[in-house]
């Protein structure tokens, strides 16, 4: 029983294991490559073109023709539009998750889940198209102004990230042991009391993860937002004023500027900022996860 074993036996185990390990390594290498390339490009504006990082993240003056590369407006615009989207989307998403798990699982399973899957499936250009042709005119007629606005971006984005948050929140709720629900019912609580006082606190970690992930999605979304937000290089004064986002400037200027120019390098720096921010979101999610695990 010791020692001997047919070659095939080992081969199948060894080859299979190696192959799937390689797949894991591919993921790691790709991620590292992306970080390396984007960082390598993005850092050139500071090392080669002599732009100050501090100016880039604190100044609102973006006029590449005069050598000013302040990206604060874009950072603020991206932040505002994503936070706005999450504020709109998260309550609705959580309500959907509760509905799917506790109010009417049947309707949730048969109707809501397919609906959410479809919403994910609608391409972002189509959202942009609908945004331009339905939402922008509607906002213009209702609130005045040009319609292209922070609010338009928020609304489009909130629909786009709804499925992400709802699905993750729903998973989190499903993970709450049914015994807790039973315990609460057993003490004579109503359904709402059980949900609000026991289920949601118990699922907080998962729900928060969903929200942060939604935020990350919103931050990185490019085409749809760019089509409706107006791209004005100015901090928004109101929900109805247009502003610009990081992804918006990237889509607009990247293809029209030349490799190696300060302008182009500055754009790569914006891409790097996007990467760093999405990485920050991941760290936040992990932090939430760990903190929850300690208890």
């Amino acid at each position, binding site marked *: 029983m010791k020692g001997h074993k047919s070659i095939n036996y080992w081969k199948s185990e060894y080859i299979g*294991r190696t192959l799937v390990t390689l797949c894991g390594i591919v993921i790691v290498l790709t991620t590292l490559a992306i970080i390396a390339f*984007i960082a390598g490009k993005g850092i050139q504006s500071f090392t080669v073109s002599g732009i100050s990082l501090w100016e880039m993240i604190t100044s609102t003056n973006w006029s590449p023709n005069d050598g000013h590369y302040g990206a604060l407006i874009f950072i603020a615009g991206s932040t505002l539009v994503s936070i706005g989207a999450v504020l709109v989307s998260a309550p609705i998403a959580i309500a959907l998750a509760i509905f799917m798990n506790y109010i009417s699982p049947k309707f949730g399973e048969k109707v809501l889940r397919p609906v959410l*899957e479809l919403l994910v499936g609608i391409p972002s250009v189509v959202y942009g198209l609908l945004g331009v042709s339905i939402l922008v005119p509607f906002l213009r007629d209702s609130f005045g102004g040009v319609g292209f606005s922070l609010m338009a971006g928020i609304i489009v984005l909130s629909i786009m990230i709804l499925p992400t948050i709802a699905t993750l929140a729903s998973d989190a709720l499903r993970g709450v042991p049914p015994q807790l629900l039973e315990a609460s019912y057993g003490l004579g609580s109503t359904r709402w009391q059980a949900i609000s006082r026991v289920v949601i606190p118990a699922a907080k970690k998962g729900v928060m993860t969903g929200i942060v992930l939604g935020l990350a999605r919103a931050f990185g979304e490019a085409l749809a937002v760019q089509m409706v937000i107006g791209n004005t290089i100015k901090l928004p004064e109101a929900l109805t004023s247009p502003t610009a986002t990081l992804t918006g400037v990237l889509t607009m200027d990247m*293809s029209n500027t030349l490799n190696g120019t300060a302008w182009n390098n500055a754009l790569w720096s914006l891409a790097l900022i996007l990467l760093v921010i999405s990485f920050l979101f991941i760290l936040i999610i992990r932090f939430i996860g760990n903190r929850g695990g300690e208890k």
Partner: protein
Amino acid sequence: MNSRTVNKIWTGIFYIVAIFIVLLLGFLVFEILKRGWGFWDLSFLTGKSSNVEAGGGIGYQLWNSFYMLIITLIISVPLGLGAGIYLAEYAKPGKLLNFIRLCIDTMASLPSIVVGLFGLLVFVTATGWGYTIIGGALAITILNLPSLARVSESAILDVPGSVKEASLGLGATRWQTIVKITLPSAMPQIITGVILAAGRIFGEAAALIYTAGLMTPILNPAADLSNPVNPFNIFRPAETLAVHIWKLNSEGIVPDAQAIATKSAAVLIIMVLIFNLLARLFSTLLQKHFEGSKGKKKKTQAAA
């Protein structure tokens, strides 16, 4: 207020939200289809798009979308499945696994435009390929890999441990167990995940603008496979349907640009619908095939 009343009010709110979302989707789909009415016209679906004259079709774009989808799946499914198997079956908890997960999470949260730009740097410029289908497919692979890996991992983890134990208990190696027991059982869930991913691949534009290009050469199936006009050449530029919509909306100078864009959007939505239906159909069929009628019963019990 009486807690029973509060309960009723909240129940009402939940119903309203749920119905609102269903209506919202209904409205969106209705609007898309209404605006793109007539999209099923065969000469539109198969016709060649024109840059100048009205009446162009989306034949090339549709073909490109499907071809891109297939190439992407050929690359990303084995990778995602492999990574999923690795995570579920072989990875040992520890620093390395933690790092792999961090990478997957990071990859999953990458903005698609950043992936597109990475693709531009690497697949377009560094390799000297220019805008190609393969470059686009690789870029979307990056976007899809995390979710495919996760779907595979959770599908594999969902296979009851007792069945895996039974196989190992008979002296099977891990790999034999994976291939003969685990994967067949996890397949329905994996396939559902893949089909849903396919829907998303179909609709991706931002990453493709920088990698697969905005144009398709005039295709000629008779041409040599290495010729960029051969439809199957993966080293040729290819504008997909989603990119086409974006381009029509931004640079379309044909008189009927808006009409084509909205019709294309309708086609895209129909495709996404079909993918979703397929996913559902497939998973129910396979579920039945693999587990028999008893599998279902087990589930309801577990849920209760």
